[in-house]
């Protein structure tokens, strides 16, 4: 037959290369990653929710700490006129059975520019930071001028 006489076949058969196999496996892995992604997102959302749940009482705690300092008159009106910053007790947020996320707490007290004879409106801003994460809480507070 004619084709038997032919030295080279029309379709040249070639085996896969290792490189090609690796590309194939990478593609398989690439297809599997989207399967894992929702789990990652859900986990991050659950952690975020846990942090928010636990930080709210901590913010209230820190606010009371700041108010306690104001009751003790640790800052003068001159200091309050500018801007007062300070730090509160650090908190540990539970994000797993044995896992905790430490947060540093700092506060800023700003005074509203409006002048009043009887009271002043302050804005207390609490900032909780842990690495790149930061959460801010703001509270208005009236201070009374005595006398």
């Amino acid at each position, binding site marked *: 037959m004619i084709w038997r006489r032919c030295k080279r076949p029309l379709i040249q*058969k070639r085996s896969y290369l290792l490189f090609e196999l690796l590309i194939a*496996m990478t593609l398989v892995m690439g297809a599997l990653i989207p399967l894992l992604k929702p789990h990652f997102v859900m*986990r991050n959302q659950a952690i975020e929710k*846990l942090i928010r749940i636990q930080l709210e009482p901590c913010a*209230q705690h820190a606010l009371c700490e700041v108010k306690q300092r*104001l009751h003790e008159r640790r800052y003068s009106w001159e200091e309050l006129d500018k801007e007062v910053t300070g730090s509160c007790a650090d908190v540990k947020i539970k994000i797993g*059975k044995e896992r905790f996320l430490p947060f540093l707490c700092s506060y800023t007290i700003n005074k509203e520019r409006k002048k009043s004879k009887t009271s002043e409106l302050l804005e207390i801003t609490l900032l909780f930071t842990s690495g790149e994460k930061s959460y801010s809480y703001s509270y208005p*507070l009236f201070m009374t*001028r005595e*006398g």
Partner: protein
Amino acid sequence: MKKKSFTLIEVLISLGLLTLLLSTLFYWYFSLSTQQKELQLLQIPLQEEEALYRRLNQILPTIQHCCYLRDPQHLVFFFDRGVCDEPLLAGTPLGCLYSIPKENKLYLTLWPKPDTEVLHREPQETYLLLENISQVAFSFYYPLQADRLTVDPEKIRDPLPREGVWQEEWPLDYKKLPAFIKMKFEREARAVEWIFDLGTTPTYPKAVV
């Protein structure tokens, strides 16, 4: 024609790499699902506590007239409840926040205001606030009264709370409201500490301005 097929070493390397990739993938999958289960288990008690915190944060800052600690685990107070279905318990009813150590539960019981004409004084409403709770304790903070210049002669014998410190007792004789109430308890081997602000306003001397 000489057919070139996989060599054994190529197959082994491919299998090794595939095993490595799949084991990494399954490790992550397993770890994520374990973490999610753990987080869900952790979320349930924390959400219960959050709901209680929000509820108490609506009640305790509205304490009026009187607040005292009957014993270390019974906080009695009048608070502004506003309008509610039961007319006797509307307005400013008497409330008691307490825990029964044997039951490990936290309750809130409401009675009608004493000056209302009620024939019996049985608890009108009792709410179970939280379960699996132990070692409930309250403490109180009364702010420094730096510029107290005048003393009312009629009140000279009234006992006064210690100023500027947290104290673990607040008897009926004080006739004053604390600035903050701290509530501590233990739940599932966790120590929880909440502070409730009763809405006092810090005062500063006018002269310094």
